[in-house]
């Protein structure tokens, strides 16, 4: 009798855990899908809020923090009023710090960090002098860390090189070369799970067309 009771209890527990996990996956999927249909900075803020709420409930998962930061980084590119860039980036950085505690030495986080720094340069071009090398350092370390070449790291790197004057070690041709590598890396990229980062391919392909068509 006791055995049956214990079994039932175990089954119930397993079921609840599974249900909880399924709920997490489904919420994540739902919001990741939402990210693909954003039309405005406000949509991105809402998406970031949604992810942040998941992060608050799922304290062991880095992905909700990561996606919330990603949505805010995108918002920093979307907003027209440059005064909104830094607050969004500050919040994104704070979320990424949480993500990094849960998942260390993660190249996806590195790519996003660099993206946030680049967004901050929108506010003032002269920030490039200090933030450019910082972002480039983060990406270089990420490249060294992942021999399999993360496409998002390469995408960030390509954009940075492309817009850096040749005198500073950049240039359009060099940028295109790296972007090609990024697109190739996208082709072979398989995310670890359905909800792991898998964004940017369409953008990279479009960008490559744009850069090479001129």
């Amino acid at each position: 009798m006791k055995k049956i009771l214990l079994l039932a209890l175990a089954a119930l527990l397993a079921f609840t855990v599974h249900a909880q996990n399924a709920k997490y996956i489904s919420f994540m999927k739902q919001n990741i899908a939402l990210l693909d249909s954003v039309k405005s900075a406000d949509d991105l803020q809402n998406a970031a809020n949604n992810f942040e709420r998941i992060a608050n409930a799922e304290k062991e998962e880095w992905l909700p923090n990561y996606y919330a930061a990603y949505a805010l980084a995108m918002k920093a590119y979307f907003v027209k009023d440059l005064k909104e860039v830094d607050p969004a980036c500050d919040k994104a950085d704070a979320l990424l710090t949480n993500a990094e505690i849960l998942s260390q030495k993660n190249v996806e986080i590195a790519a996003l960090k660099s993206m946030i720094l680049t967004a901050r340069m929108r506010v003032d071009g002269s920030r490039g002098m200090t933030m450019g090398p910082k972002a480039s350092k983060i990406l270089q370390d990420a490249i060294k860390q992942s021999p399999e070449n993360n496409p998002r790291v390469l995408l960030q790197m390509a954009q940075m090189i492309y817009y850096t004057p040749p005198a500073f070690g950049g240039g359009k041709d060099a940028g295109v070369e790296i972007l090609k590598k990024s697109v190739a890396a996208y082709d072979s990229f398989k995310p670890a799970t359905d909800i792991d980062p898998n964004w940017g391919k369409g953008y990279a392909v479009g960008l490559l067309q744009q850069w090479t068509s001129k």
Partner: protein
Amino acid sequence: MKPTLATLVLLFFAFGVQAQHTQLKGTVTDTRNRPLAGASVSIKDSYDGCNTDSLGHFSFSTSDTGVSILSISSIGYKPWQMEIRLTGSTQQFEVVLKESMNELTAVMVTAGAFEAGDEKKTTVLKPLDIVTTASANADITAAMKTLPGTQQVGESAELFVRGGEGYETRQFIDGTTVANPFFGSAPNIASRGRFSPFLFKGTVFSSGGYSALYGQALSSALILESIDLPENSSASASIAPILVGAQYQDLAKNKKSSWGVSAQYVNIGLYYKLVPQRPDYFHAPEVVSGDVNFRVKTSATGMLKFYGNYARNVLGLRNPDIDMASLKNSFSLDNGNIYTNLSYKERLTGRLKLHAGFSFSQNLNDIKNQVVDEDNNPVPENTLPVYVAAKNYTVDATNNLWQGRAVLDYKLKGLSSIKMGAEYWYSKDISKFNRYKSTMDDEYKAAFAEADIYITNRLAARAGLRAEKVELIHATNLAPRASLSYKLGTGTQLSADYGVFYQKPQPQYLLFDQHMPQMRADHYILTFQKLGLSKTFRMQLFEKDYKQLTRLNPDTTHNGTGYARGIELFWRDKITFKNFDYWVTYSYLNTKRNYLNFPYEMTPNFAAEHTANLVVKRFFTKLNLQFNVNYQFATGRPYYDIHLDGSTQKWSMRDQGTTIAYNNLSLSLNYITKIGKAFSVVVFSMNNVLNSKQVYGYTYSFDGTNKIPTLPPANQFFFAGLFLSWGTDRTQDAINNNL
């Protein structure tokens, strides 16, 4: 039977409660009752929640029961939380979010100062602005002369601010003062600052009402903050017809420490052969200098920095004698200078920071002035009138300054903070004027405290007090400082500053009288500022009252007085004209003083009534070319012939006048390119492009019958140079090695 029941109970717990839903609804607004869209509403540790819509409304249901926490957050606002009981019935909330305090939205306490640097905050100037100001030739103080409040005193490198003497502006590096910020120079010829602008990540120029953390400057403070660890190792070189230099910076592999060395040699001889100078240089200015630095990250939040610099500069020139046309004055200078600065900063606890600094500097001057004949041979003194023979002199001086300083910075709630600290200076000056040797030792002690209190996001107050003691003259003074800032709207604010500032009398007068009190200036400043990302407007009204200034007429006393008042405007716009960045300044100054040998209260010869500046910059991205133009204008300055009557021993006015207005158009070009593996900048600059006549004042002969204008050594100055650096960007290496 039993298991079924147990299972049922468990199932009830697991799912049964889900049957009950609580509906939560409400509106979120800011303190001015405007709806906040996009705020996140959530039940703590749960998925349940939603975002507010454009009207600030939210509505969602939760299956949680019992006591929980409803929290609402929005970027730029303080998070709101409330304990709620979820009972199944609908609940309604009206939530008001308060703006959070942050440096971007809060009122600025230091609105009166011009700040360059700090990549995050909205600042009026960027570090690069100092290097790309056409008239400045990468000299920090010269760049400051394009800001309101400063005078165009072409015969001096010092900053003359709001009717103050050059020595009333003091420079500080990482908290400690710099005793000799400029290279040695001949009388009435401006030299340059000793420190490269690239050493600093932050520059604050306060034209008055500066913080209680600093003292011994009656008018103004130029506060420089040195850079921390470099991003990577690098080598650089500078080549120009007048200089060669090399520099190396090494960053340790673990990125925890760095060291660097540099050396530079300047010789203007070749340039003077090409561009004739008014004085007859028998030794063109020549400088040999070198510096060393190291920086160590002592912990995650600690940083120890050392910077040491040695420079020797030598020059010699001859000018016609004003009293006897057949004679010349031969002036020579040999200056050696050591400057060292050790600073340490650390976060002691979460809220408490320590800034400590030590500095030692030594300045050696060997100066000789000799009256010579047409063949440059010394003239025997007994053949000369006394007033001409008096021009033969030698100065052999050594000035030492040791300093120590510590400041504790305690962060209160929000942005408020309290700073407390103390400093100690010990100076030893040994000088020999002709045969007369003198030694002067002095100790200066100060303790200070300052609180920045953000009363609301719109209103902030700063209150500071500085206690000073100058041992030599037994002076103890209390200097209060205060300011109040009120934010009128986004980026717009009004501030009022008040402060009392003390400075000990100049050493040449202390030699004769050590019973003088400290000189005193009281500042009253009103600032209106509108600071945006691409446009800045600032207007300042000020009044400055001087007391206890040194007087020499009829005797050495300390009852000199004076005042300065005026209005200053600054406008910078980076957006209206595509690709152009410009700023315009205007300063009106009304100042008079009665000090030194002045027979009565009058405007000193370093003060012009109207001063204006136009600085324009344009970067041509495709050409990698930066083009800078700078126009400086000032109305004429007064000049005087104050004569000492031999019989009455009183000074009286024998002649006076006003110089012609000052005009200076400068331009510079910076071309960025790659030479081999080196990132290179080619610089070309030209001062006084229009070849305007510039007269800084007049000097009079002993009998007053002859006056000659004080002119720059040459009307124009040209510079061309090449600056190379290697290893500043290793991006390409990383890509090549890893892809």
